[in-house]
């Protein structure tokens, strides 16, 4: 299992290392050593669970994408809050979303984004990974929701991963 002293997923290792530095009380010699051990051990142990390594093409889009999602979470939270408090009954819908992404990692990022942004929850994915089932809390029209998700989230992910 530990066939060689390597970091099979450098990005995961880096994230783990930084996370450990934030978690421990200030950066010290001990936290750096333990951080390095964790950054090596965890990717080695979980190696078999990762489907295939995603190939990033334009990783520098990532920060902008994260900021946009955070902004959308805040903005759309207000609309969900408003919907909960207003007396009108929502118009929920199950929507089949045609996926353009192929990489499993990219699809799970998209599905998580859909679940996090208020108003939509990704419920299921078809066996051939072509269609994502989404439950929308209040959909004016299905096509609008599909276009919104494609333009706001899937397009940047397509650029990032493929």
């Amino acid at each position, binding site marked *: 299992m530990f066939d060689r002293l390597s970091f099979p997923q450098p990005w995961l290792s880096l994230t783990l290392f930084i996370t450990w530095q934030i*978690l421990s009380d200030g950066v010290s010699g001990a936290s750096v050593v333990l951080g390095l051990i964790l950054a090596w051990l965890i990717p080695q142990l979980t190696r078999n669970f990762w489907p295939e390594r995603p190939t990033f093409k334009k990783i520098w889009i990532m920060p902008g994408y994260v900021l946009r999602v955070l902004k959308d979470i805040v903005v759309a*939270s207000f609309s969900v809050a408003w919907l909960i408090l207003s007396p009108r009954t929502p118009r*929920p819908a199950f929507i089949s979303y045609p996926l353009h992404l192929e990489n499993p990692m990219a699809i799970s990022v998209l599905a998580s984004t859909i679940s996090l942004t208020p108003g939509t929850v990704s419920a*299921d994915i078809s066996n051939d990974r072509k269609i994502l089932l989404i439950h929308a809390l209040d959909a004016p029209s299905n096509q609008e929701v599909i276009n919104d998700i494609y333009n706001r989230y899937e397009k940047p992910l397509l650029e990032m991963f493929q």
Partner: protein
Amino acid sequence: MSLFAEYAISALLLFGGAFTLIGAIGLARLPDFYTRLHGPTKATTVGVGTIMLSSVIYFSALGEGIDFSEVLITVFLLMTAPVSANLLAKAAMHVSVKTMKGTEGQPWEQ
């Protein structure tokens, strides 16, 4: 602690508390299981986020240097909330939970 920091912390706490409350009201008010999934996963994200922010300001204003460990709570929440929402939705479809009247489309057969 400066007066400004105290006001900012109070405002953020009230805001976060209000959002969490609205999420809970949504749980009681919304008509079926699938719509109820939305309230807690979303409103609470913003609620926890602002409460966490006020905690960061509080401990930073105490003058022990800026401490970001609380940010991790929100990051972990953002990573796990979609997974639990997805599993709940899948479980609901598996046992064919009834959808509310006026729902467009059908959940898939499991």
